[in-house]
């Protein structure tokens, strides 16, 4: 048993999903790679505690986004994959996503190298995904995840409780409006987030789709 993925010996894969039957289904994919699946039955401990423990007993993970429907974990999968990233541990976030989920996930995206839909996951893609994660953790980012400092133009800000900014990145696509929660922007920059404002941020301009985009290191354009 065991595989070499980008030079890393992998023999056990952690499986995090709040639905037991889904965990079993993922386990079959892992078994077909002749690796040992480690389905997490839950309830999971705190984010830091669980991330640290899992990273010790396995070499990679497949993780769902929604973990809260069954009192399975007090955090969601994006936060977990991002915490693992900090630990240098490769993990795939495997979920279907709607716009609301994209919004919630965006701030974690700098630390989520691979986002994949369950219907697209098979053993080959699992290995390919882990390889992308491992390479990124070593500093080798794919072109769609390389960040550049770029101008961000605020088109509009929705005034409701979950404030969202609607921004355009002329260097990415001058026609498309990207929605981001205002809370993703650091507090120091937030007062400047008003219609027609110009800001700078580091963004992965090679991203092909809206859900791949992420933002970092915001500044107000003088």
């Amino acid at each position, binding site marked *: 048993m065991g595989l070499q993925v980008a030079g890393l010996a992998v023999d056990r894969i952690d499986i995090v999903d709040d639905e037991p*039957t889904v965990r079993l*289904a993922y386990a079959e*994919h892992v078994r077909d790679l002749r690796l040992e699946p480690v389905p997490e039955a839950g309830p999971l401990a705190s984010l830091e505690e669980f991330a640290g423990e899992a990273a010790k007993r396995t070499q990679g993970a497949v993780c769902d986004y929604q973990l809260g429907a069954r009192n399975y974990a007090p955090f969601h999968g994006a936060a977990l994959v991002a915490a693992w990233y900090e630990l240098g541990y490769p993990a795939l976030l495997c979920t279907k996503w709607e716009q609301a989920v994209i919004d919630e996930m965006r701030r974690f995206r700098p630390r989520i190298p691979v986002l994949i839909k369950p*219907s697209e996951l098979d*053993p080959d893609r699992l290995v390919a995904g882990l390889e992308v994660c491992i390479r990124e953790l070593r500093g080798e980012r794919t072109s769609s995840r390389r960040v550049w400092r770029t101008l961000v133009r605020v088109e*509009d800000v929705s005034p409701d409780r979950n404030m969202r900014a609607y921004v355009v990145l002329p260097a990415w696509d001058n026609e498309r409006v990207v929605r981001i929660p205002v809370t993703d922007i650091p507090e120091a920059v937030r*007062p400047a987030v008003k219609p027609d404002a110009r800001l700078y941020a580091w963004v992965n301009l090679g991203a092909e789709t809206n859900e791949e985009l992420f933002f970092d290191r915001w500044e107000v354009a003088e």
Partner: protein
Amino acid sequence: VEEQMNGRFRFAPDILRRLGEELNPSPDQSIVELVKNAYDADAHTCRVELTNVDQLSGSVRVSDDGEGMNADDIESGWLVLGRSPKTPGQPSTRLGRHPAGSKGLGRLAALRMGSRARLTTRPRREPTAEYVLSIDWHEFDEVKVVDEVVLPIERRQRPPSAEHGTEILLEDLRHPVNRGDVRKLARSLILLADPFSADPSGFRPVLAAREFKDLERFVESRYFADADYHLVAKLDSAGRASARVVDFKGEELFGAAHSDLAAKRDNQPYRCPAIEFDLWVFILTATAFQLRTSTLTEVRDWLRAFGGVHVYQNGIRVAPYGNPGNDWLDMNLRRVRSPEERPGTNTSIGRVSITGGEEELPQKTDRSGFIETPAFGELRTFAQDAMEWMARRRMELADARRAQERAESRQRARQASRGIEAAISKAPASARKEIEQAFGAYERSRDREVSQLRKEVQLYRTLSTAGITAATFAHESSGNPIKVITLSIRTIERRGKQELGSRYQQILEAPVCAILHATDSLSVLGTATLSLIDHQKRRLGRVSIHDVVKEVLKMFEPFLAGREVSTSTEWADGHPYLRASQAALESIVTNLLNNSLAAFERKSVAKRAIRIRTDLKDTVLVLSVADNGPGIEGIAVADIWLPGETTRPNGTGLGLTIVRDTVRDLGGRVDALSHSDLGGAEILVELPILGR
């Protein structure tokens, strides 16, 4: 060491210009800095006089009745730049004031406003002395470093009538001060020492100008008692919040503990110094002012002059919070959502008072507010949470009021009915019967209408509940089971191919493909439900009609394929758009597609087809949705729009009503053909567009 020489930093005169001119952005702010020096000197009054300031030769005089200074104070205090006189948290003046000036940098900016500055000061401790210092800035142009210019401090005999205090005269202004600056200065001076407080600090700056007198009268008017709601929110030194809202009679309407205000942040304390936040909110309508002593115009003008939420640290205002155009709490942005329950900067006035906190809340060197430290972020969050809480409580109140109005309207209808019956009884006997019959008929038809409306409301509520339930369980009902099926069937497919080799195609391929296809269709259900209720789609904005139609078609793709319906589209040129919510347009297109799909159930058609077409006629876009179903039959074309009218046993009869109402709301109109060139019904929606 053979020899030791001493070096020291020295500064070119240009640094004075840069420090002075770049650190204070406007003349009014510069003068306010001198006034803050008067406050720090324990003055009770400080008078600012402007002479010919609209010209280059103008002068500014700032005089106070404070402690005054002797030669030593001037040399080691007033002339030293960059040293803070403050001890954080400790009042340090004789009257117990916290010094408000900023390390002499603001003073430098003010002194540089003129070509010459003259300081005359009479210390309280030396009753017969007067000290004079003159600065001619031209002298600094002639030297290489600042300390080459010597500034003599003259000690003189104080004129017998002169009291202690300090006077600064700025002459030959470098830039004229315009009327707008004077107005801003007047406002800044009035607001400087918290004029709203019942316990003012005893410091009253005065500007000798007409603009000031007008404003001063204004501020003294104090319309606080006319506020409909007064929010009093407090944060103690442990970061625990509390709040209450009182009405104009001073009676408490709502109260909140920390857990009510900080629920969103899991009751975490706010990490910033102790704060008191007052917000007076006005409902600026003629009705609300009917029984008040003040007029709507007075209060509106007063709010225009002083509205906004001002910030005071140790009793002295921190600009620019609450200045015109400074909406640091995003009040106006939040007000857009529900104007009735939320204050804006033009309908409210407020004050955030901070005691101490100089370390956690340091001010920027250029006096443009606080440095955006985490503590400042927390301060802002606290104020916003308090306002949010008040908005929710007011919303509750409004809901209760509406419920009461509904109950009262029924009672009023009954009373009116009895009134008419009484009136009829007084009519001549010959006409009475006829009137009674007519009124009876009217009442019956009105009752029918009311009953119909109630049913309609109930139907909307039922459908909403169905939608809410579908959305709540979208994840469980379609997400997880579909995930299991998809993942498992992929495993079966993979292992089947591996184990069975060429026999896989014969034995398993067809059923595996069928399951994969079916799960595709199923998964759309959850996605579609969640996509339709995305609350951001209800936001008004520029919406591209073609984009919305394409998006809905994409969402419907598996449903349409499952029902063997092919679609064709014909688009008008360009990208026509209008101002609407995406949800509104989606509900039009979705209901029209649903309508066509339902029609196919009534008739067997060889090749089911839906055609969507857009045409532009000047500024109107015509959206046509036609199908080759049975057309409109068994119901008059005009009646298809009526609520509850349906030819399907399980139909709600609301789809086309929603289309009609939504189109009307967007300023458009609807029409229908019972049989189009495709054979089935064609619905035509005309929408006025903004551009293409």
